[in-house]
């Protein structure tokens, strides 16, 4: 994921995504990364990888936060497979 061309993706996401998807994404980021983490006595940025993973996994099982995790997953997957290298791993090299 680290090598994905995020700036190019986000630039196009801002053009393509309707306001409610952009707002939903930011709300998800805020609610899970700040509010939910705080309620569990943690700060997202200070969590190690395993801690982040547990936080997101728990949020995904939450009745209200679960759909927001789904939005985050969707956007992450769209970004990942927007990269031709990720496509080629599954589809093989382009003809």
């Amino acid at each position, binding site marked *: 994921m680290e090598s994905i061309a995020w700036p190019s*993706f986000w630039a*196009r*996401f801002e*053009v*393509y*995504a*309707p306001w*409610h*998807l952009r707002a939903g994404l930011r709300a998800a980021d805020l609610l899970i990364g700040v509010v939910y983490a705080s309620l569990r006595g943690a700060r997202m940025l200070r969590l190690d990888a395993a801690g*982040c*993973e*547990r936080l*997101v*996994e728990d949020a*995904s099982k939450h*009745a209200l936060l*679960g*759909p927001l*995790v*789904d939005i985050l*997953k*969707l956007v*992450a*997957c*769209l*970004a*990942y*497979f*927007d990269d*031709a290298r*990720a*496509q080629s791993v*599954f*589809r093989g090299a382009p003809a």
Partner: protein
Amino acid sequence: MTHLRGEDITREHDCRVDVAIVGSGPAGSTVAHDLTRRGLRVAVIEAGPWREPGDFPLDTFESMGRDYRDMGASVTVGSAPIPYVQAKLVGGASPINGAICWRMPRDVYDEWVARDRALAEGLPWEAIEAHTDAIEALLDVRDTDAEVRGRKAELMALGADALGLRHRPIRRNVTGCEGLGRCMQGCPKGRKNSVDRALLQPAIERGALLISSTEVAEVLVERGRAVGLRGKAAGGGRVTVRADRAVVLAASAVQTPALLLSNGLRGGPVGEHFQCHPGVSAAGRFREPVRMWEGATQGHEVTGLRHEGLKFETLGFGLGLLASRLPGTGRAFADRVAEMAHWLDWGVAVRAEAEGRVRVLGGRTVVFYSPTPRDIARFRRGVRVMGDMFFAAGAETVDAGVRGFSHDLRSPLELAPIERGGPTSAAAFTAAITHMFGTCRMGSDAEASVVGTDFAHHRIARLYIADSSVFPSNLGVNPQVSIMALAAIAAARVAGEGPRA
């Protein structure tokens, strides 16, 4: 005449034709095709751009961003936010759908006529059949070739056989399919006989004017008669099309009522009676690689439970969308993505009984919709049957896509509770809405319907509606060909003829 790209229209553009049409999907393209054959001057205004096969992207993000309204992320307001998908390009959904072609089911037609006997005269069955024959010939509708159906179709056939359910290859409007699995992003080889190529292009060659990338905002009405359309082009110019004979709305069961409502044309139940086919999906994991992205996007279907309002289909998405539907988060999710070749998604289209409504609030179109408890019971049943088919076809585990249930169900016994005592909320399911109907319902009673059985608006002269918003109910099957058959009858009415082909 020709094709004007909205991006190039930077100033005022006026023209005069016989018939002005909003929307270039299956309905609008059919009307344009049939009216130009009768020698009428036609203009089609479409909100989206024209795409050549070479324009269609490999994966989901670019496709959704460019060719789907709101990036495919429009959601209903109701008991659960369910995404509803609308295209925004020339040809409407036709260039980016699964190319599934169904003739109108006779049982649905009989339901319509039982509700309103006048429909038998306005929409004679033999006329629908004759138009359907002509459309199937024009689109080269045929069974999906066995060579390109893919492993996902073979496994669905295996599962359906084990359960004793009727199944068959999907009939599609595709010639020479190579099984690239990219129908939903648009066929890069141009093998889909979508309406932009099969009907609109010939209409343009006969003189129709296509104005693309132009959003219609106004239906011009003078002294109780529709006289034209006005919209704004992507280039910023204002487009006015005057129509000497008729204005035809064919912008979809969401956009057509939204256009009427935003113009204050509220006569009759405009926007009411919204019906659709919520689709619910589930996934199975197989020991062997099944490479869901290979083979015809949608090549096989199970029709044996259509009488219960359930029709099962193989699915195919771009990799991005496919991955996002895999269960879990974190490392477990990454592991599943890495072995994505082993996962298969199937879907069930539900003939839901719920009725919603389309409204325009603060300039935005809103769809209010909540499935009924009986619809949710159909969701549960559909998921259970899909799971049973997965296991019968050899799946090791099933993810029913139902919140609160394990992502790794290991036997039909573990599935059974979903049907018997599963969730009663639509929010618990992996669902999306396609195929929308009924928001400008056709009928003989001007109080209970928006258009008459001649497709003419009950209250505004020379205004016709030709898309699936006139359908008295949903169909339970893919509507593209039925929409076109009814639009062909609408075109005959606009031309002043009877309904028969």
